[in-house]
């Protein structure tokens, strides 16, 4: 299988604090990778560095054959990298429909795919339908519940037609059935060929979803492999159970 994302010796410090140290990771196209680790282990920092929101200090990030270092976040999104935010960040003054429209008119259009106004609108509605939000298409994000906001985040990321989607704690605070909904969504996406990196604390969800598990502790990668093997790893046990 082709290597879609390749991270070599990535490092990031904030003043004196080392957030990430020597992170190397390769993700192949079509994979379902779970990324776990205690709070403060650097998961979100890693996502920010991969997606360009933060610049990495050392190492390199390669995506789809291109070196990403130095490129801005929007350029990486155009290359096919999409992410959701831990705390949903919808465009508060735009309707749900327009929220979905943004990646379509900026990311997808930038790849040279030209759609008419009608096609774009139809696509927006379709995406909202996939996450069950088409009834609220013309409402504002403030009218949404927690789980609906997370679905909007996902739908917006999906609208960018990514090759790789990083879902950052999309399930925090949700009920059983809501978690099931999100997992189903992600599985469907993966079946269509989108590679997914799932960052989660909810072990049940991560274990059932991931084909591969990566564990981050204090900015270092301490395990990377089959979920069952990883969970039996003594270092991982120590990190979680103390």
């Amino acid at each position: 299988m082709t290597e879609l994302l390749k991270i070599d010796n990535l490092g990031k410090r904030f003043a004196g604090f080392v957030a990430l140290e020597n992170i190397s990771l390769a993700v192949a196209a079509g994979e379902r990778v779970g990324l776990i680790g205690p709070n403060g282990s650097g998961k979100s920092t890693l996502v920010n560095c991969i997606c360009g929101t933060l610049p990495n200090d050392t190492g390199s990030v390669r995506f789809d054959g291109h070196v990403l270092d130095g490129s801005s976040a929007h350029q990486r999104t155009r290359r096919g990298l999409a992410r959701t935010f831990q705390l949903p960040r919808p465009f508060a003054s735009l309707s749900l429909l327009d929220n979905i429209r943004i990646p379509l008119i900026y990311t997808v259009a930038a790849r040279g795919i030209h759609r008419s106004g009608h096609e774009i609108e139809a696509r927006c509605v379709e995406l909202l339908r996939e996450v069950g939000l088409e009834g609220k298409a013309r409402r504002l994000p403030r009218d949404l519940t927690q789980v609906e906001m997370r679905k909007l985040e996902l739908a917006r990321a999906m609208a960018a037609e990514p090759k790789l989607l990083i879902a950052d704690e999309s399930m925090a605070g949700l009920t059983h059935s809501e978690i099931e909904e999100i997992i189903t969504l992600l599985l469907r996406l993966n079946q269509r060929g989108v590679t997914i990196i799932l960052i989660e604390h909810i072990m049940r969800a991560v274990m059932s979803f991931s084909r591969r598990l990566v564990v981050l502790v204090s900015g270092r990668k301490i395990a990377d492999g089959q979920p069952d093997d990883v969970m039996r790893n003594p270092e991982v046990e120590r990190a979680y159970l103390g």
Partner: protein
Amino acid sequence: MRSPLFFLICLIVGGAVFAAAVALGNDYYFFAGYVVLQYVVLSTAWNILGGYCGYVNFGSAAFFALGAYSTVALHRLYPLPIPAMLIADGVVSGVVGFGMGYLTLRLRGAFFAIATLALAVVLETLIVNWEYVGGSRGAYIVRPESIGPFGNYIEYLFLIMMLLAVAAITAARVIERSRLGFGFATIRDDELAAEASGVPTLRLKLIATTISGALMGMAGAPFPYYIGYLQPSSAFSLDYAVNSIAMPLIGGTTSWVGPLIGAILLGSLQQLATVTISSAVNLLIVGLLLVGFVIVAPNGIIGLVHKYLQRKPDDFVGRRHVDAEAPNRVPGPAP
């Protein structure tokens, strides 16, 4: 409504206003009206960067003065007709806007705002020390008695400013409804999420500062002819900075209508006030209105009208509406 039709309607309305002023026969209306129209341009220009993108420019006076002084400098070289001056000054101001943006737009909005203040002072210091345009002593520009079919030079100036105002609000409206306008809104709402969605935020912000700066410069271009004697203190007057912020915020920042309403209302009020009460009380009222509206009516007059009509905002002027009860987002840098 398609834009060319809108532009035509505005021209007709503008023409009607002009005709009415001519009919009234008193030059005062042209002088006062010029100032109001000037503010329409300034507020609309400010709003493109401030209201649409959410980046506050405290240095509107700097761009306005840049336009005025470019006219003076050019006039000393060779007195071009005003429309040509307008374009030249617009280019100068646009370039400066671009340059300033390039230096500061990578920073957070707060730093950008402070930088605009700094720029205004630096520019003023440079101009005060530049003898060619008169420095602190000021510069005289002789206004011709009449030009072409107009009986009066002030009528000509009024008409120019009217055309500029029409152009400005048409441009604002076109931007609002375009892909660019959507991009601007995402920058205002959440720049981080905008980048993650593929919006080239830096490029769009630069476009906004350039257009905004250029329009402000164009608003200042005919000013030396209007006032006859240009001093740095009048060109860099704080009036411009405060009004170009107060008018859109009071009128409503989410669409081209807001700055227009704000400029016409506030501008006319101030013209009346300077005749009756002192200009200091005038400014105090503007300041109080600004603070009052910003606290009580964040969506300005447009927002108040919405509430009164009990309509959902997207029914009326489209999509952009400031959320006064948005859920509390944790402030500070992203995780």
